[in-house]
């Protein structure tokens, strides 16, 4: 049996990698992947603690989160494609029309 502290440590590490990735990387697609990492970090917590307490609610929540992640990626990729058609780039540093 893995201890709950280990689970929390791993999920926190995964979450930190995701956050750092969003903040450091400049490619819109990689930012999208890092957001997925953050969602999956939360999923680990949900599943592990649901199993710990012997209830299923947390596991159902995790399943729904996966569905949500898919929907989010669909919209995100559509927007990235629209951006690429317009500007020929997916680097977020190059989208600087709006500022001030």
């Amino acid at each position: 049996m893995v201890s709950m502290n280990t689970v929390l440590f791993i999920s926190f590490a995964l979450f930190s990698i995701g956050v750092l990735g969003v903040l450091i990387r400049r490619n819109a697609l990689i930012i999208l992947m890092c957001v997925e990492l953050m969602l999956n970090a939360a999923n680990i917590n949900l599943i592990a603690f649901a199993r710990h307490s012997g209830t299923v609610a947390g596991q159902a929540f995790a399943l729904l989160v996966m569905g949500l992640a898919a929907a989010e990626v669909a919209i995100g990729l559509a927007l990235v494609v629209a951006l690429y058609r317009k500007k020929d780039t997916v680097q977020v540093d190059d989208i600087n029309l709006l500022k001030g």
Partner: protein
Amino acid sequence: MPFAQALWESLVGDSPLVLPVLFLWLTGTLMLWPLDSWLLKRMPKERWSFITAVILIVTCWFVINAPNAIGFADMFRVDGVTKGFQIICIGAGVFTTALGHKQFDALKEHTAEYYALILFSISGMLLLVGATDLVSMFFALELMSLCIYILVGYLRTQERSVEAGIKYFLLGAFSSGILLFGISLLFAATGGTTTNLERLGQAIALAPGNHDLLVFSGVLMVLIGFAFKVAAVPFHMWSPDVYEGAPTPVTAFLSMAPKAAALAAFLRVFGAGFHSVSENWIAPLSFIAAASMILGNIAALRQQSIKRMLAYSSIAHVGYMLLGILSMDTQAGTQAVWFYMTTYLFMQAGAFAVVIHLQGVEEGERIEDFRGLGKRHPLLAFAMMVFMLSLAGIPPLLGFFSKFYLFRLAIIEGFVTLTVIALLTSVIAAYYYLNVVAQMYFKEPDEKELGRMGICTSTVVTVCSAVLLVGTAFGPWIMKWVGKIL
């Protein structure tokens, strides 16, 4: 099949609670198919906005007649607060439909999708304001946001619309990642037993000492997630860019409906759920409120674009409304926030109606475009003056009354420093609102013809300015009525 039968029975039994939402889903889907392919050939496209408005009014009727109860395994609750905020969201949808009528009905394609997305995002808001469980709250929030990401980037041939869409999407997805991780930490703090707000509040208050860090970081991350959604400083960076880049009717929608829904959820989560661990969030939330008021108002001073100015001013108004959420007397706080949000709805809808009308003749984007409007179009200029003065909180208008009510509550609750900051920043705010009024009345006009105003826009302007002008006279009755229903 006892399980399937039980599931079916509980779903059917609770369905009256979400009847408005089901109605929106059904009509929205019908609009996409088959109505879009079938009706398009037979009728002028202008009908879409009319159909949407009718659907929203019917939804409003459903909302008013919904029974007050809790259902879906304690995940959704209908009461006065839910209904009050649901009506604000629907009202914002009606205003947006009226305002977007000209621009979106003129699109060559994808008109029906625009209105269907508005209906879907409103259905998310209706669920969000009634959610009493972190799970239902999170998914309702996402349903609302996902539709709005598309709406912001809707004009995909315009570079700035796409850019605003992708900025909003990336930061919005980032913030929902933080929110979800916060929820999972709180779930962990209860030992994986519950996400229901009420039980969660009890469980984390009783959690053993070594869970302090877990509860603290969980609450903080949920707070950050919500602050992103309502655009409060320091999580506001997306809002000016998105407001400027989005199609103007969508900007109007964005500044009214999601804000009302997210604030209602804010009230439920922090007022009811995390009440027991308030020492964890009072200080950060006070900081966010003060920073929003100060930074929002100061940054608005140097804006040239009226959409950006309204974006910063809405950050400041969120700062004021957070005072109501800080209030320990949850009921009074809810009433104050609801009343403020309703007033704000009329002010924003009216101001954006004027901006959209001027934009139709290729101006109105910059504050300078309002030069001499008092001579060119006296009635429109007067209405705009009413909206600006009401946003600034000048006495005879309704905006003053709602601000007064909110600040009075904050003083009673003992947030004296925050109230002083709020009052001082309101004085700063008067400068940039009055600047627009000064441009209209004291600058010489350009020799330019203004187009005729559509019936929809002029109705919105008339209704909003009338409410703001005469509202204060009925102030005491309104407050008594609000006290009874919320």
